[in-house]
């Protein structure tokens, strides 16, 4: 895949606090790159440097193989940004907001008209185009916030937690819209706390903590990297005749628990032993009602990598 952006050795310090420590990653054309991390991980600082609103202490950002500082105006022209806060004129209509922000990118005349129409349609706000933003719900404002960032058809869109505090319908609309942007060839960099959003839209994921990138890859590869165990939950009709220690004799089984006719077994991921577990249960005359095999979720990956300790 073609690289659209290369981030090299970014470092940023605020006072004595080093918030980015040698952060490097690439962004590929047409992908949705999700940046995950707990509060204070350095996500927003990274995003702010990518938007050129904040300077790094060292390192550089290349866009289409050229440093963004060499052609800042050209870079900004091809960039769309959805800030974390809703950045709209509340007293103006949706259309007037879009017109104003799109015209900052040099659009005028027919191209401006069609850009505004397209963005309104994209955000599902065509029928509310003449209404003032202050009359909109939180979800509608968020949708317009995104529409203002993509009206000028940027090559790359950076979204910083664009779905904070909205209803499921608007979130669903936004996530579908991002998939649509991707299918139209747009590259998206997306930060969020919501794992289900990452599951839904990401092509690739970067996990940050304490100013460092601690993991990078597709959701499948990340899950695989932390998954060295598998968990079986087996519901049986009666567990009276089975002892938990019986399962420990099977190769690969690390632990087992029995409660309320449900057996929970943790086994080595690389050893196939389900058939032996089933055989042991049936040997004891019990009937299997249900078997559930749990794989690692993105949330498990995230918590395993960043820890469960509460952050400020």
């Amino acid at each position: 895949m073609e690289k659209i952006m290369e981030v090299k050795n970014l470092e940023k310090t605020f006072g004595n606090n080093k918030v980015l420590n040698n952060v490097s990653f690439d962004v590929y054309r047409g992908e949705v790159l999700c940046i995950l991390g707990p509060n204070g991980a350095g996500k927003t600082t990274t995003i702010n440097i990518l938007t050129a609103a904040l300077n790094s202490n060292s390192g550089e950002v290349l866009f289409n193989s050229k440093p963004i500082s060499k052609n800042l105006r050209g870079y900004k022209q091809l960039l769309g940004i959805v800030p974390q806060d809703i950045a709209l004129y509340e007293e103006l209509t949706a259309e007037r907001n879009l017109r104003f922000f799109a015209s900052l990118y040099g659009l005028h005349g027919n191209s401006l008209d069609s850009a505004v129409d397209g963005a309104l349609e994209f955000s599902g706000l065509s029928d509310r185009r003449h209404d003032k933003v202050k009359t909109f719900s939180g979800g509608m404002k968020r949708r317009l916030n995104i529409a203002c960032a993509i009206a000028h058809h940027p090559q790359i869109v950076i979204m910083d937690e664009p779905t904070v505090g909205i209803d499921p319908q608007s979130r669903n609309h936004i996530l579908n819209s991002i998939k649509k942007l991707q299918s139209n060839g747009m590259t998206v960099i997306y930060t969020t706390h919501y794992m289900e959003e990452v599951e839904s839209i990401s092509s690739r994921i970067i996990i940050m903590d304490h100013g460092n990138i601690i993991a990078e890859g597709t959701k499948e590869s990340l899950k695989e990297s932390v998954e060295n165990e598998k968990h079986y939950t087996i519901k049986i009709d009666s567990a009276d005749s089975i002892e938990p220690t019986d399962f420990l004799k099977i190769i690969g089984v690390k632990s087992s628990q029995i409660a309320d006719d449900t057996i929970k077994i943790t086994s080595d991921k690389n050893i196939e032993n389900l058939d032996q577990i089933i055989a042991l249960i049936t040997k004891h005359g019990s009937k299997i009602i249900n078997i559930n095999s749990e794989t690692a979720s993105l949330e498990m990956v995230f918590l395993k990598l960043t820890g469960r300790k509460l952050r400020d």
Partner: protein
Amino acid sequence: MQRFFVILKMDLANLFKNLIIISYNTIFIILLIVIMGFLFGGNYAHIEDAYKYFTVTFIIYAILSGAMTASNCFMERDIKKPNLRIIYSPAGSFSIYFSKLLASFIFDYIFHTIVLVGACLFLHVSINNLPLFILSMAPVEFMSVSFGIFFCCVFHNEEATSTLLSTIVSILSALGGTFFSLDGMGKAMAFISYISPVKWLNIAFFRLAFDNNLSYILPTFVISILISVALIIGCRFTFKPEDYL
């Protein structure tokens, strides 16, 4: 340049929709002139003379208070967030603060001119060479809004800027004789009064308005422009886009 005018147009539209700012720059000033003129007229002077005095001093007070219009235009809560998008756009940071500066200047200049002309028409204030008086207001107005924008760049906050500047403007105006002249209160008070730049502005505009004397206006013009340029250069160094983040 097209982007700059797009932003300027938006800033002007935002200001002209702001009834509080419009009232502050018109009704408030008219009320000050009328009330103070009425109170001081009769007992101490002819009412026409009182209106003359307070029209000049309060127009200058309004011009200096234009710094607050600028700080509101620049960093008012509802405007600060959309400004973030302008920072992200290819328009550049100069367009942000300079468009606010120019919009505040145009807005204040229009309304202060209306107040002045209104006072001449309805309070029978006769000002010699009214067009030159109005023209002379421009550089002072520009300097005043430049102060507002510069302090916003320094403090990154409308409230801090407005509080500081309104306090300074009020103190300097009181010392400069805006509300009543300190010249008759003894040598010490008269000396203190002359420390205030507002006193010199009042003298310059009084001499222009009533004596046709231009001797103080040219220095006022030049000094105001020089200070404005220095403040705009200062904005280039103090305006940091990250303060919006």
